């Protein structure tokens, strides 16, 4: 593939999804400037690898690259944020086995009224892998199969991460009356 072909493909496959790419990077890095650097790095990787793009879902393809670049950034700049996922899920399983915690079930109306700052704060405070699963589903509207491909885990794991992410956000919004 020569440079002109690469440019054309890049314009068709990458440029239309720049907002999604930036949105995901912003949720992972937590700020604008770093998100822009991550998107830039991801787009450079995408451009180099565009010959290997097999066609199909350009958005999921780009978001996979963006997520990888964002996690590289996290590991380098916020190593504490990348908790070992197995540890995290073991802790969650221990907490969630069996019944739900009593008295910790806010009214749906309270959740529905949460203002934007609370909502943003609750999502931002999630562990990284829960947060990006929730963002890909509830903010960016991807389906489970796409999320599984982007995050490199089985669909079952997407389901459990999403359930836990939503559960945590609901608990936070409910606790904050």
């Amino acid at each position, binding site marked *: 593939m020569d440079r002109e072909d690469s440019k054309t493909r890049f314009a068709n496959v990458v440029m239309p999804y720049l907002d999604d790419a930036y949105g995901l990077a912003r949720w992972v890095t937590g700020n*604008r400037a770093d998100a*822009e650097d991550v998107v830039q790095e991801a787009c450079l990787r995408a451009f180099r690898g565009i010959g290997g793009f097999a066609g199909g879902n350009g958005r999921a393809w780009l978001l996979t690259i963006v997520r990888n670049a964002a996690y590289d950034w996290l590991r380098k700049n916020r190593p504490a944020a990348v908790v070992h996922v197995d540890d995290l899920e073991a802790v969650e399983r221990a907490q969630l086995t*069996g019944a*739900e915690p009593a008295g910790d079930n806010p009214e749906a109306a309270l959740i529905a009224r949460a203002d934007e700052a609370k909502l943003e704060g609750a999502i931002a405070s999630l562990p990284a892998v829960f947060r990006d699963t929730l963002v890909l589903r509830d903010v960016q509207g991807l389906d489970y199969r796409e999320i599984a491909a982007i995050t490199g885990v089985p669909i079952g794991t997407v389901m459990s991460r999403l359930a836990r992410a939503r559960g945590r956000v609901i608990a936070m919004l409910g606790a904050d009356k």
Partner: protein
Amino acid sequence: MTTQNDRLLLNAYIDGELDPEHALEFERRLADNAALANERRRIEALRAAIGERLPREPASLTLRRRVAALVRPRFPDWRTGWPAMAASVAIAFAAGTLATLVAIGPGVREPVPELLVASHVRSLMASQPVDVSSSDRHTVKPWFNGKLPQSPRVVDLAAQGFSLVGGRIDVIGLTPAPTLVYRVRQHVISLTALPASDRAAAPIRPIDGYNVAEWTDGPLVYWAVSDVAVSELDNFAKAFRAGEAQP
């Protein structure tokens, strides 16, 4: 009583990820499990709140330009990407600063084109390349009135593919100058009007990786700076000169 497995199924049900058979089965469980039904309302409330109120921010114009610049063969080795671009921006800045220092020295001619390129680059690094943002020339032109003694022609070139983004005031040397900003595809064109001198206008030329065009129109000389190709900048200049000015 809600088990972890119920929660997974509930989330998948809400997301439309269960096949019809399992969805029906799950609906029956929902009907006679109050705790599960409450959990459903909470998740749906959360999804609605996220959809309605979570702020969504699009990629900035600056980021779009940075990404578009990655694939432009402006640099000999495009693989160096951002560092190379950063270096060229730094050089443009250095050139601009130096030029300003030179300009305020007595009897030294201002290298106006370099100053214009530096202003253009600086505007691209800001979150907005304009101070007044409007595609309507009847909004942009009056904005300059009262701020500057001379307001520029503002021409609507949307039909020719150059959309008006807005305007700003650049300071070139020590002269405040009105600058119009047009966009074509992902590219920005800065068009600055300065008092005309008796020097003849030079042809389009590259400066620090940008193309610079100039033409004289009565008391003003117009300077266009952009990273579009020479031919396209020439088209822009011709369209602007031929265009109908706002009365």
